[in-house]
């Protein structure tokens, strides 16, 4: 029911008591502003962490080996542990149900020559699945495929910056380049969100590298993308189990971190998850503190303002105002002020967050923003608080006998 006369009374009351209205409005606007900024900045932190782990697939594991530092089973320390195809095949066979993608990696570096241009580049010899594990983006052509692997094809996929160095703007696909004096065909050009360093890499089939460089079955690392069906805890357990099995197969001391190391993103994710959860609880704590401070602010001002107006209410009642009409007047006024001020605080908060944008990237804050539902929820909370803050003292004031109210100063 919209009663224009009632609202006219309320607007007059707000308008003629500007200081009071502005004070209570300011409290609310400030609370919502702080709330918005706080949530926005924490969101920015979360965004930053999410982005920081975006380069590699976030459900991956990385197996590498190096020298032993502890003697084990009669074997001396200082022994170099070499991963081979058999280990790769073992993992694939034994754990195929937990694995979505898997690739070996063998590093080398070589001079690559095209016509009169040449430079040294890092070469990664990999399996076809590698593109998913490294989140490689194919710009042109294709990645290494199973056929290349089977036939040990002399094909390479070059990074965007390698292409730029050697070909400039001219097409590279199908061209032949010399890699350490062996001719390879370029079948693809890729880019990578990991940045410039990644885009100076060159990929070739692992089988080709094994045959041409050493003619053995050595591999340097194994990358595993575990099945998305695995929970984080199960993925961590998978990593631990794999580590135990490989240590046994390679005769490595169970505590020798140098000889075999598995970097499991599941553990890192678990850490980030815990950090985010902790942040979330901190924000809930501080945010609700801010809201409560705002609510107490409104309540104080409402109590004071109603006390100040007791005589006015007495006059109104002597003139025939029913208690309900006085309560409704005060509550509507309180809700109107908190609602408007809350909206203002919200606008200002989102405006400031927009202005910040990515300006605080070096403080680990990326794209700070708040979901509108959250802020609307906070504003509704404050409006409800304003309603309550207005209602309780107004009910008390409206219940005072007019004769007592008239005597008040």
């Amino acid at each position, binding site marked *: 029911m919209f009663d*224009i*006369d009632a609202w*006219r*009374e309320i607007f*007059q*009351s707000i308008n*003629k*008591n500007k200081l009071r209205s502005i004070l209570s409005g300011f409290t609310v606007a400030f609370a919502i502003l702080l709330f918005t900024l706080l949530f926005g900045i924490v969101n920015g932190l979360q965004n930053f962490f999410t982005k920081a782990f975006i380069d590699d697939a976030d459900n991956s594991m990385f197996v590498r080996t190096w020298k032993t530092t502890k003697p084990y089973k009669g074997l001396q320390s200082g022994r170099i542990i070499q991963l081979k195809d058999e280990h790769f095949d073992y993992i694939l066979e034994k754990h195929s149900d937990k694995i979505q993608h898997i690739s070996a990696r063998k590093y080398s570096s070589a001079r690559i020559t095209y016509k009169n241009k040449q430079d040294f580049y890092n070469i990664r010899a990999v399996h076809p699945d590698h593109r998913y594990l490294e989140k490689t983006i194919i710009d042109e052509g294709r990645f290494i495929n199973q056929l290349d692997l089977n036939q040990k094809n002399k094909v390479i996929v070059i990074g965007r910056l390698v292409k730029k160095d050697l070909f400039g703007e001219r097409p590279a696909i199908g061209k032949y380049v010399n890699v350490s004096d062996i001719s390879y065909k370029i079948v693809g050009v890729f880019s990578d969100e990991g940045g410039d360093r990644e885009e100076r890499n060159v990929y070739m089939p692992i089988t080709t590298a094994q045959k041409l460089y050493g003619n053995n079955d050595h591999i340097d690392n194994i990358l595993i993308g575990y099945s998305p069906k695995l929970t984080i805890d199960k993925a961590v357990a998978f990593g631990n189990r794999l580590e135990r099995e490989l240590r046994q197969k390679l005769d490595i001391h169970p505590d020798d971190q140098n000889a075999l190391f598995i970097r499991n993103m599941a553990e890192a994710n678990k850490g980030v998850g815990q950090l985010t959860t902790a942040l979330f609880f901190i924000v809930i704590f501080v945010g609700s503190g801010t809201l409560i401070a705002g609510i107490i602010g409104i309540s104080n001002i409402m109590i004071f303002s109603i006390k100040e107006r007791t*005589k*006015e209410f*007495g*006059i*109104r*009642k*002597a*003139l*025939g*105002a*029913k*208690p*309900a*009409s006085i309560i409704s007047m005060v509550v509507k006024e309180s809700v109107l002020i908190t609602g408007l001020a809350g909206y203002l605080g919200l606008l200002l908060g989102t405006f400031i967050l927009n202005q910040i944008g990515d300006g605080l990237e070096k403080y680990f804050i990326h794209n700070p923003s708040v979901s509108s539902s959250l802020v609307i929820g906070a504003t509704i909370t404050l409006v409800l608080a304003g309603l309550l803050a207005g209602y309780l003292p107004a009910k008390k004031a*409206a*219940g005072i*006998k*007019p*004769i007592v109210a*008239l005597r008040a100063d």
Partner: protein
Amino acid sequence: MIKIEGLHKSYPIGKDSLHVLKGLDLHIKEGEFVSIMGSSGSGKSTLLNIVGLLDTHDLGNYYLNGQLIQNLNEKKAAVLRNKFLGFVFQSFNLISYKTALENVALPLYYKGIGRKERLKTAQEYLEKVELGPWANHLPNELSGGQKQRVAIARALATKPKVILADEPTGALDSTTTDSVMDLLKGINDEGMTVFVITHEEEVAEQTNRVVRLKDGVIISDELTEIGKSKNASYV
């Protein structure tokens, strides 16, 4: 119009209670112009508050316009006040942030009358108290006498049966006192019941009937000279 039988009222003061009104009987007929005289503490303000439904009584019967007043809640009291009673206070009790016109229109708002009509009526009553040109002034821009006239216009606006005036001239000098009393007399001449509380003999003399109160009992109730002559002229 107002009939009171054996009215008692006491106020609690700590553990004791102060017996303010000790069994009053009073009958005021429609159209009368009555003043209640008494020193402070005699109970005259308490009597007016009870009559004005601003306060409740403990014992006895009170009939307003023939209706027995009992078990009133605030809501019913508000309706009755709005319908039957108009108040004029010693301290004027105007709402400071409203103009003279808006103050006069306020009881009409609580009566549920539309804005246009209420402002028109309020303007008429302001003109009746000769404050037409002051309609858009705030109370603090008016003199004491002017404020009281605004309050009288406000009391009249709802066309009540009874005007209750609590020391209406208490805060005014003698010249403005006379103009306010003239106004009240004029209202009474138009047939409205006027009930004035005062401790000034000069004010009481201008009414038709004086009821003297002392320590919560009526010690005298007689017609004034004006009252007698009026009564004589009726006869």
